[in-house]
């Protein structure tokens, strides 16, 4: 199965790299390849969900397909597919504006496709060390994607990203090694395979496990944008082209969270899980608070959204830390909801940026007349992301908070206040921006269908998901929660 992934991936890479085959509209040609790949991967993931017995292992148990992995892969492939469609119009425009040079296109799309492959395999990892490696690879690739744009700030942003993320990641190697030694001590032979860890967790010394966990957590936290290792995130998201911001926010952050989730699943088997929960919830609350407060004075739409991603990652961390089956169920749902809404927000922001060549809110005049779709995308997205009803975030928010009440009421109250601030931040921006009218009239930039369609789709998607809970999804999530041993 996984071979199928690799082969198809490589074939398409091949098509991309064929030097002699260089059609006139290279952008569209490469883009079609990207679409093709994400489509194929989506299909493959669905297929592996249906036809592959879960869990099943590959490549001497380095890789594994279980429901959690497939869930992650499905979300990522879906987002990638939408992004690829969006990219068709978006990148064409970028080329017109010389924001990106034609000669960079191959690099761009190659990195794009590689990223997809790496992401999918990161989800399919069974071995934590391998997972670590792929995680580091995603950093490299996304950094490349960020710097393909013609701007110095992008390089700065990328450097910050690379350094902050990978310095933290080094610590998680230390953690992994300790974990390895721990298993070795527990059962003669050391291993970092997740399934084995799950089985042997009980026999490890809880103190040492926590010790290891803390170190591993540092790295994953950095990738998931957890305060205080989140510092790279806002700039990277803001500077990257919106397509890439989508991937960074809706896909890459999830990988970090999935890593934490798997680790926590192991921790839950040991006696150490109370301490671990404490750590996670502590970091979660800190993250939410810092993100919420930093959102208030933001005038840059993409930065605002980026901070809200940080805040949501913190919230997910809290949810994981609670460690009750219900909480985890809703955490998984929240990941999906967050991915969809964030995609919508960044797509709209992308359109607005191409209209006004700026992410600053005060530059956006006459939004409703120029870009009604994007404007509504922004409004609906904000409403959805602050978690008001008929949008899915509300459900997961309410339920995770309900679980939190059993853990601690004061914490619950603090988080609620932070959410209030977040809501205020979004409201301030939108209400000040959306109605403002300008004297100098821009000519409306005609948004291509390939950019409109994904947005339409997302509108429908989030509304439906907000009021209708598919039974299949329900069973799947329940299955995942069980397979994680809760």
């Amino acid at each position, binding site marked *: 199965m996984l071979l199928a992934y690799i082969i198809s991936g490589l074939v398409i890479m091949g098509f991309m*790299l064929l*030097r002699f085959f260089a059609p006139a509209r290279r952008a569209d040609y490469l883009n079609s390849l990207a679409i093709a790949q994400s489509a194929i991967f989506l299909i493959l993931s669905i297929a592996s969900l249906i036809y592959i017995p879960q869990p099943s292992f590959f490549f001497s148990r380095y890789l594994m397909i279980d429901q959690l992995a497939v869930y992650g892969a499905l979300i990522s492939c879906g987002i990638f597919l939408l992004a690829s469609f969006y990219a068709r119009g978006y990148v064409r425009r970028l080329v017109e504006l010389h924001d990106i*040079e*034609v*000669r*960079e296109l*191959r*690099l761009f799309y*190659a990195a794009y496709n590689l990223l997809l492959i790496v992401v999918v395999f990161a989800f399919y990892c069974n*071995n934590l*060390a*391998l997972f*670590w*490696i792929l995680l*580091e*690879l995603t*950093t*490299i690739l996304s*950094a*490349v994607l960020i*710097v393909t744009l*013609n*701007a*110095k700030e992008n*390089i*700065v942003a*990328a*450097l910050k990203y*690379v*350094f902050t993320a*990978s*310095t933290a990641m*080094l*610590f998680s*190697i*230390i953690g992994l*090694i*300790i974990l*390895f*030694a*721990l298993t*070795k*001590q527990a059962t003669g032979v*050391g291993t*970092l395979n997740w399934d084995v860890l799950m089985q042997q967790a009980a026999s490890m*010394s809880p*103190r*040492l496990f926590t*010790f290891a966990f803390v170190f591993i957590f540092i790295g994953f936290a950095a990738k998931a944008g957890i305060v205080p290792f989140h510092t790279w995130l806002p700039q990277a998201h803001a500077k990257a082209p919106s397509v890439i911001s989508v991937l960074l926010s809706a896909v890459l952050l999830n990988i970090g969270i999935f890593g934490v989730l798997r680790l926590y699943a192991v921790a839950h088997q040991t006696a150490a899980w109370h301490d671990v929960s404490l750590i996670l919830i502590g970091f979660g609350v800190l993250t939410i608070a810092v993100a919420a407060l930093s959102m208030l004075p933001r005038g840059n739409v993409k930065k605002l959204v980026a901070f809200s991603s940080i805040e949501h990652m913190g919230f997910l961390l809290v949810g994981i830390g609670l460690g009750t089956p219900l909480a985890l169920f809703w955490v998984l749902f929240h990941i999906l909801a967050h991915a969809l809404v964030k995609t919508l927000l960044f797509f709209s922001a992308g359109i607005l940026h191409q209209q006004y060549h700026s992410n600053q809110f005060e530059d956006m005049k006459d939004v409703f007349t120029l870009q009604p779709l994007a404007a509504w995308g922004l409004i609906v997205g904000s409403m959805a992301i602050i978690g008001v009803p008929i949008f899915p975030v509300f459900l997961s928010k309410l339920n995770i908070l309900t679980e939190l009440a059993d853990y601690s009421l004061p914490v619950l109250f603090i988080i609620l206040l932070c959410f209030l601030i977040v809501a205020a931040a979004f409201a301030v921006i939108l209400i000040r921006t959306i109605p403002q009218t300008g004297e100098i009239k821009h000519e409306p930039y005609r948004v291509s269908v390939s950019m409109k369609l994904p947005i339409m789709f997302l509108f429908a998607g989030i509304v439906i998901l907000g009021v209708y809970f598919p039974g299949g999804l329900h069973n799947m999530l329940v299955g995942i929660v069980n397979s994680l041993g809760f």
Partner: protein
Amino acid sequence: MINLPVLDDITKILFVLVLATAALIITIRTLTSLLNIYSIQSWVIAAVAFVLYLKNGSIVLLLLAILTIASKAFLVPFVMRRIQKSMHIKRDLEFRYLTPIGSILVGTAMIFLVYWSFSQFLPELSSETMFFPGAVIGVSLALMGMMVIFTRKQMITKILGYLTMENGVLLFSLFVAELSFIIELLIILDLVMLIVLATVLAFGIDTSIDEFHDKLNSFTLWFKE
């Protein structure tokens, strides 16, 4: 399998050397000599690996030693020299947050701190005598590398700091070892790619966008038009 106490002493001496190099990296201002110091450090690490191999002859360690020398003592410094040449930067003068002296003091503090903290756990983890000191030295080396990153101004120096952190981690891992070799290999490759990228980016900061993109493509050769 030779088991002589002398080996442990050698290891200790090597540790001291490692720390010395780290201290130098923190303080020295000239880029070229920084690079040299770094490759020396890598040699030392390799030596530690080799000594450990002599001690409990697991082949992985030997391979690691070779790999380290290959990548860290030759490849990476080579790349960086090239870049640095084209960047026309000779020395890195300013310091932030900490003066060299200050950072060395903090570094020492780090060592004690890590020692205290780890002494709560690690002794019970491995029977290997040198494991605990190795771990302490490794982690503190990593922390010192981090200090280099945030005290020095030049990108090149920062990258060296990062490499130092890596060395620290490597040192740490030597004593637990036996991550399956493939993993070790991948990790190292991964890091090398990272360094290359970082170096190119660093180059991009100090030159025009076009030169940067040329360089970028030249490092990802097959993308060139």
